[in-house]
């Protein structure tokens, strides 16, 4: 399977991260097209586009899959794509941008509220009792929101989620998400 990838793109990172956590091997083909249109996965099983569609395909026959009846699959896809647009605007802007945009705060608040409800129900994860493709898709939103200068002091559940997620076996980083040595 070939991932048409751009290293600095958050949607592509979600796919690389998912593959690493699930132990799926991908051949990486770097293309600047992926910086605009997001990740594309090609192989003998056809072509898959969009981070959640690709993650769902990679997660077949694994516990990472979430029932497609869960509202969080579609929601996470929309949230990651929205975040990605905001982040690209901020990073590629030729003029200074207003930090901490309300649209990004709204995304983080949705995740924060869900994580709080889940924690009180006994789970560290967004869409169920175990880590899933929804967590993989929303981890870049949580961890890269610094790029939009959203202060993390307002989101204790998000900080806990980032810590739990980083501890998953197979976790990998991307530029902007540090390794702790």
């Amino acid at each position, binding site marked *: 399977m070939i991932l048409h990838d751009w290293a600095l793109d958050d949607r592509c990172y979600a796919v690389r991260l998912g593959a690493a956590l699930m132990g799926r091997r991908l051949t990486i083909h770097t293309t600047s097209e992926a910086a605009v249109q997001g990740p594309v996965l090609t192989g003998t099983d056809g072509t898959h586009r969009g981070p959640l569609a690709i993650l769902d395909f990679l997660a077949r026959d694994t516990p990472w899959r979430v029932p497609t009846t869960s509202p969080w699959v579609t929601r996470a896809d929309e949230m990651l794509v929205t975040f990605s647009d905001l982040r690209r605007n901020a990073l590629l802007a030729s003029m200074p941008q207003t930090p901490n945009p309300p649209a990004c705060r709204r995304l983080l608040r949705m995740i924060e509220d869900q994580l709080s*409800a889940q924690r009180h129900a006994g789970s560290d994860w967004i869409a169920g009792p175990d880590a899933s493709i929804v967590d993989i898709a929303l981890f870049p939103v949580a961890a890269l929101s610094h790029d939009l200068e959203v202060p993390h*002091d307002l989101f204790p559940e998000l900080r806990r989620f980032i810590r739990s997620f980083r501890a998953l076996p197979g976790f990998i980083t991307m530029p902007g998400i*540090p390794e702790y040595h």
Partner: protein
Amino acid sequence: MTMWHPVALGADIPAGTVAPVRLHGDEVVLWRDEAGILHAWEDRCPHRGMRLSFGFVRKGRLACLYHGWQFDGEGRCRHIPAHPDLSPPGTIRARTWRADEAHGFVWLAHDGSESLPAMKDGAFTAARSIAIESARGTVAAALGIGQDPVLSRDGLICAVHAADGETTMLHVAVANPADAADAALWAQRTRDSIERGEAVAWELHL
């Protein structure tokens, strides 16, 4: 007189972790060493000004993410990876705040020498710290928080602090651990009510 401000739930800073906090716009890093001792410093590495809250805890020290400078529990620089044989001078230190814990909340004081006033004993369970996009005065008035920094009502223990002029953190704990989940949802409803300019409803269980 020393002003002590409640700025976080202690449960949100487990041993070995780091968290940023803002108090009236002042940026502070809270970190807890592996032994469970809490530290509060200015969120700024004395080397290059990097946020120390991006750093990590190693063996009782906070390490800056940027160049790995390590600071001990007193804020003194103890190790500079680029100069491993150098014993850093004692003048290189992070600026410390006074920190204490009571009622399940973390309290900060900038200056003064008075200890955190003794509070009525009680084991409280953390429910939720939640950001409200309203000024502290608005939130305090909506909740009926007066001079006493902690409000105890209907089994809920509430404290607030101003992150900045427009954003307030509401910290909620409960006396009965079985109420924690409902109290977290109450905090959410309360945030939404205050942001819409509506009265706060105190019913914990709906």
